[in-house]
């Protein structure tokens, strides 16, 4: 098992977000976490990705327990082993598309020329050739999300965490983003944990886990 969350509890003040939720992810697997608003699915993602520390329960990544690591080590793990895509691309507005994509490599200390070359290659793979120099403000919603995907995948992470990655897109752009995400993940053996409330998006996953009231319920196979 590549990533495992077990019996996770998390509350914010007196409000419970997670009450014993768990999920597992094997290498190269795409798993969707679904549930109504307030079910705890985003908190689950944040705990698994080391963004939040659960109150109790365990998170294991590559045979290593990570929920009790110091903040600095978890931040290091997020930079090196994980990629992230959120509902709104959250691109750096002052940087052109190619530099946004290359950012994880630049932060990891890769030479600028190599990082930008890798950034351009990922833009090409996601059908965005020629947009290298565009600023985020000049991109459509679908293009921004594809740049965000490229940024999440450029450092060949073990896991991509995607929180409502198509939430701001129309259905055609959403399908395109999901196809690119799933194809790219399968091609390089990256696992994907996808949080969504849209069944149409979850249908791209190999497996779906339903979260309700902070707990996971019976998994749904892809059939």
């Amino acid at each position, binding site marked *: 098992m590549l990533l495992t969350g077990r019996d996770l509890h998390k509350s914010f003040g007196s409000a419970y977000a997670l009450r014993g939720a768990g999920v597992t992810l094997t290498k190269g697997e795409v798993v969707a976490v679904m549930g109504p608003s307030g079910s705890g699915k985003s908190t689950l993602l944040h705990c698994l990705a080391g963004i939040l520390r659960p109150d109790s329960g365990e998170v294991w990544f590559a045979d290593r327990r990570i929920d009790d690591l110091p903040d600095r080590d978890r931040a290091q793990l997020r930079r090196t082993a994980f990629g992230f895509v959120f509902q709104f691309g959250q691109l750096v507005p002052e940087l052109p598309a190619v530099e946004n994509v290359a950012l994880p490599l630049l932060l990891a200390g890769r030479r600028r020329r190599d990082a930008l070359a890798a950034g351009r290659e990922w833009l090409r793979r996601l059908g965005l050739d020629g947009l290298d120099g565009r600023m985020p403000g000049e991109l459509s919603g679908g293009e921004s999300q594809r740049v965000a995907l490229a940024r999440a995948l450029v450092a060949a992470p073990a896991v991509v965490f995607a929180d409502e990655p198509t939430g701001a897109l129309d259905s055609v752009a959403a399908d395109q983003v999901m196809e690119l995400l799933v194809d790219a993940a399968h091609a390089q053996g990256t696992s994907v944990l996808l949080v969504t409330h849209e*069944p149409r998006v979850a249908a791209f996953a190999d497996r*779906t886990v339903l979260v309700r009231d902070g707990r996971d319920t019976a998994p749904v196979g892809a059939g």
Partner: protein
Amino acid sequence: MTVSYALLGLLERSARHGYDLKQSYDRRFGGVKPVRFGQVYRALAQLTRDGLIEVVGVEAGAGPDRKRYAITDEGVTDLGAWLGEPEEPQPLLQPVLFTKVVLAVLSGRPADRFLDAQRAAHLAAMARLTKARRAAASTQDAILADYQLFHIEADLRWIDHTAARLGTLADEVRDAADRS
């Protein structure tokens, strides 16, 4: 009705025999449901009686004579009118889902368990259809899968909405049962 107009549309492109029409229909629209030969010949007979198509030749062969059909001007007008006319929206109701929920609540059985099982079945069907759509050979095949996907998704929204309202529904159904 739809089959007749589909045949009319195919004949607008070129005059054809009934056999060719059946093949053409199945290629274009068979993804929904292939048509039987009997249906094709019945539809052609009716379209001929209505003056929307006409027989433009008969070839004698080893089997029965092969009639060649062509669309008439009246047929072209009728087809155009049908294509321009919006259809009455018809909810594709699966009344069985609604009936099961109400019956479960009425009899004190766990309606939420039924809805959970139904949700799982719907999600699995969507995953299968999504896989089929991604492997689709043509846009036409893909939009047929999309059509099914969006309708299943609508059912799922109803399932989630109903699951969130089961408490209120139970109160209401019990009150009504007490009164009757």
